[in-house]
C-alpha cells in the first residue's frame, strides 16, 4: 500500500521545488544562476526571446563550466541587449552582421581548434529572421561542414525588431506588416515558409532539437544534451512575442504552452537526422482555436466572421504533427 513519495506531486513542472534534490532543479531556480542576460535590457514587456535566451545561455554556461563564447546575429535580441554603451550580456559575446552569425561562429570554433583549446565551446544564436531567412546559407554551411557549433534559433515567427514583417518562419494565416489581413486569403499564405528544424535534420548533423520557453526542464535538458556532443548542432526554440503576436505581456508562457499542447509546435530531439525522442503531450490535444483566439495576428479568423476553413487548415497542421511525431498523451505507468 505504501506509495513511492515522488518529489513532485507539487510543482514537478515548475522551475524549482524545495522538495527536489538541488541537483535535480533547473539552472534557472538556482540563486547563483549565471544570469548571462541580465536586467535593464530593452526588450518589450513580457518578451519571450529575452527569457529564451537567458534559459539557453544559463544552461549552456552551466554545461560548459563557463567556457562558452556566444556569437549573435542581428535582430531583436542583439538590439535590445546591447544598445551602446550598455550591455546586458554577462558572458563573452560578439555581434557581427545579420546574415553571417553561423559563419562567425564556425570561425571562432576553428580559431579555438587552431589554438588547441578543446574546452571552450561556441554557441551561435539569432532570431528566425537571422536564422531561417538571412543567415540560412551560412547556417547550412556550418551544418554541412559539421563545424563544432551549437546554433540556437529563437523563433518568434516574424521580423519583430523592424516592425513585424513576415519571415520564412511566419505561420500560415498570421497577419504581419507584410501579410495584412486583407483580401480573400488574409494573412500569411498557406503552403509557404520553412520548417528549419526539419531542414537541419536533413543535414544529418549530430543533434537537432525543438523547445519552448514554456517547459524549462525540457529546454535545459536539450541544451545539456547538445553540449554533450561535438559537431554541428541546432536548437529551435519557440519564443512568443507580445508585440508581434498581439498578445498580453503575461500570456507569453501560456501561448508557448498552447503551441505545444495543440500540436502546432512539436517537441522532439533528432540525432543524425533521425527523430530520437519526442515529448508527448501531457493532456489530450487542445483545439488550435484556443491558441489562435488570444492572438491579434489571428483576429481576422474570428471577426467579423469566423473563418472555419482557415481554422480547419490550421487544425489539420496540428493533427498532422501529432500523427507524424506520435505526440498523443501516454498513460502514466
Amino acid at each position, binding site marked *: *500500500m*505504501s*506509495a*513511492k*513519495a*515522488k518529489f*513532485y*506531486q*507539487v*510543482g*514537478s*513542472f*515548475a*522551475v*524549482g*521545488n*524545495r*522538495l527536489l534534490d538541488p541537483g535535480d*532543479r*533547473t539552472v*534557472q*531556480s538556482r*540563486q547563483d544562476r549565471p*544570469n548571462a*542576460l*541580465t*536586467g*535593464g*535590457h*530593452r*526588450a518589450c*514587456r*513580457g*518578451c*519571450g526571446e*529575452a*527569457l529564451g535566451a*537567458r534559459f539557453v545561455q544559463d544552461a549552456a554556461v552551466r554545461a560548459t563550466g563557463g567556457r562558452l563564447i556566444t556569437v549573435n546575429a542581428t535582430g531583436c535580441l542583439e538590439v535590445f*541587449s546591447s544598445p*551602446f*554603451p*550598455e*550591455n*546586458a550580456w*554577462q558572458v563573452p559575446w560578439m555581434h557581427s552582421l545579420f546574415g553571417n552569425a553561423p559563419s562567425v561562429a564556425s570561425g571562432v570554433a576553428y580559431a579555438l581548434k587552431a589554438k588547441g583549446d578543446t574546452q571552450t565551446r561556441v554557441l551561435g544564436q539569432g532570431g528566425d529572421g537571422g536564422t531561417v531567412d538571412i543567415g540560412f546559407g551560412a547556417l547550412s554551411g556550418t551544418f554541412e561542414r559539421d563545424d563544432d557549433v551549437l546554433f540556437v534559433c529563437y523563433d518568434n515567427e516574424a521580423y519583430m525588431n523592424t516592425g513585424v514583417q513576415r519571415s520564412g518562419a511566419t505561420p500560415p494565416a498570421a497577419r504581419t506588416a507584410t501579410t495584412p489581413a486583407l483580401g480573400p486569403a488574409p494573412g500569411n499564405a498557406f503552403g509557404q515558409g520553412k520548417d528549419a528544424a526539419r531542414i537541419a535534420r536533413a543535414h544529418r548533423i549530430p543533434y537537432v532539437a525543438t523547445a519552448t520557453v514554456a517547459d*524549462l526542464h525540457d529546454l535545459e535538458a536539450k541544451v545539456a544534451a547538445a553540449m554533450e556532443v561535438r559537431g554541428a548542432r541546432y536548437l529551435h526554440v519557440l519564443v512568443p512575442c*507580445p508585440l508581434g503576436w498581439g498578445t*498580453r*505581456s*503575461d*500570456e*507569453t*508562457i*501560456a501561448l508557448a*504552452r498552447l503551441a505545444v499542447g495543440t500540436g502546432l509546435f512539436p517537441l522532439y530531439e533528432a540525432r543524425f537526422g533521425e527523430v530520437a525522442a519526442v515529448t508527448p503531450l501531457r493532456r489530450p490535444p487542445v483545439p488550435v482555436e484556443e491558441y489562435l483566439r488570444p492572438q491579434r495576428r489571428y483576429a481576422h479568423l474570428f471577426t467579423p466572421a469566423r473563418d472555419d476553413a482557415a481554422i480547419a487548415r490550421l487544425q489539420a497542421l496540428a493533427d498532422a504533427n501529432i500523427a507524424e511525431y506520435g505526440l498523443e498523451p501516454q498513460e*502514466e505507468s
Partner: protein
Amino acid sequence: MTADRRPLPFAITLAAGTSLANRTGAWRTERPVYRDLTPPCEHACPAGERVQGWLYRAETGDYEGAWRALMADNPFPAVMGRVCYHPCQTACNRGELDEAVGINAVERFLGDKAIEEGWTVPVEAAPTGRRVLVVGAGPAGLSAAYHLRLLGHEVTVADAAEQAGGMMRYGIPAYRLPRAVLDAEIARLERMGVRFDLGTLVTNLDVESAGCDAVFLAVGAQLPKRAHIPAGDSARVMEALSLLRSVAEGEPVRLGRRVVVYGGGNTAVDAARTARRLGAEDALIVYRRNRERMPAHESEVEEALAEGVRIRWLSTIAAADGDSVTVERMELGDDGFPRPTGEFETLAADAVVMAVGQDVDRRLVEDLPETEGAVAVGADFMTAAPGVFAGGDMVPSERTVTVAIGHGKRAARRIHEWLGAAAAPEPAAPPVATPADLNTWYYADAPHRVRPRLEAARRAGGFEEVVGGLDAGTALFEARRCLSCGNCFECDNCYGMCPDNAVVKLGPGRGFAIDLDHCKGCGICAAECPAGAIAMVEEPT
C-alpha cells in the same frame, strides 16, 4: 558607466557599462505583489485549522512541526482523522484537477504519530489565576478547556459521566473511533493541567457560587426526540443513543435477529452498523425520504451498505409490535417533503431503534433564553447570563464533532477576553483561493491514496476499527498532493520566468522580492504562479 579606466579602443567614445544602469522599472503600469490567499480547506474547516500550513510542514517529513501547527487549532488530530466529515476535502481545489487531497488521512497519521511518540503541548502562558468551569466533557468542552489552559487559565471540566469524551465516547461507535485513541488525546489534556471532575452532575450555573470566574456550557443535545409510534406491549423499542451508550460502556444489549432502525442521520447509521456487530442478521434502516436527502454522511452509508445494512427509503413506521413493524410508503412532493401514500406493509422485526434526532436537555439552562430548541448565544458565545458561555450541540449549529471543537476554540478566546485580556485583533481573512487563481499546468497528476478498509465480511464480527491509517510513505505522498492554494511554496517560477531578472530569490524559507528598478510589470510571474500567490496591482499615478 564602468569604473574601468583603461584607454578606450579605436573609434569608441564611451566606455561600455552594464545595462543594469537602465532602470526599466519606469515602464511599469502594474507591479507584482506577493500575497497569501485563504486556502479553501482552511476556509471550510469548522475548527479553523490552517490545513495548508500544516500540510506544508508534513510535505518535508516534518511531522512533529506539522502536528504542532495543527494543535494550535485542534487538540484532537487522531480523533479528527477518524470522525471528521472533512468539509476541507469537499472544498479542496485539487478535486477539480484529479481528486481532493486526503487531508483527513494525513491528519490521522499525524495524530497517531503524536500518540506513538508521546508528543505533548507545553503551557507557556503565565498563569492568570483565573478559573473557568467547563460543564460537559465532550468535544466542545474539551476544546475550550485546552485553549483556555494554553492561555494560562485554571480549568476544571465537570461531567456527569464517569469518563470524559461525551459523544466521542458514548455516541460514536468504537469501530469508527477506538477508545485507546480517544483516551490518549484526553490524557494529553490532563497532562497539560486540565482538571477533571467526572461523575458530577452540575446543577448550579451561578458563576460566583461555583467558585470560578467564567463558565463554559457544553452539555450537548442528549434528549431523544419523540416520534409517536403506536407500539404494542411486547414491542421492544429503544433509543439509538442509549443503545450506543450501552455498547460503549460494555453493557449487554439484546436486540434480536431482525433490527429496524428509524431515522436517516449518522446516529441511525451508527445504530444499524452496531446492531450488525451485536449479531443482528438483518439490520434495516427505515427513512422517510430518499438517499439524496439523507443527512447521514455518504461514506458512512457506503460502509453500512457494504456491511449488509439495508435501507428502506421513503418509508415511515406506522406501528410496532412484538415481532413486526408496519411501514407506510411515502412519496416526495414537489417541495421535497415526504407525503403518505396510504400503502402499508408489515416487516418482521425483533426490535426497533429510534434515531430521529436529539434535543437539548433544558433542565440546566431553563432560565436562559431559547432559540431553535437550543440555547441562544451571541457572536461571542455568551448566553444571557454574564460570564456564562455556551457552545457545541446545545447552541444552534450543525452538530458535528468538528463544529463543536471550533466552538470550543472560539469561545475560549472570547472567555479569555471576558476575563480581562485585551481583545486580540483578528484581521479579516484574505479572499479564498479559487481554481481560477491557480495555474494547474505545473502540478503533476497524482491520484489520491486510499486508506485501507477492513474487509466487510470481517467487520460485522466485532468492533474492530474499519478504516485503517496511512503509512509514512503514503502520508507523505498524500501531503505532497497539496496545491498550496494561494500561498507561496517556493517553486521558483516567478524567479525563473522573469524576462528581466527582476525577481530576487532570497533563499530557502525567505521567499522572493521584486527588483522594482527593473521590473517592467509584464505579469508573467503572476500568470505563471501555480498557487496564485502573486497579484498584479496598479501603480499609483
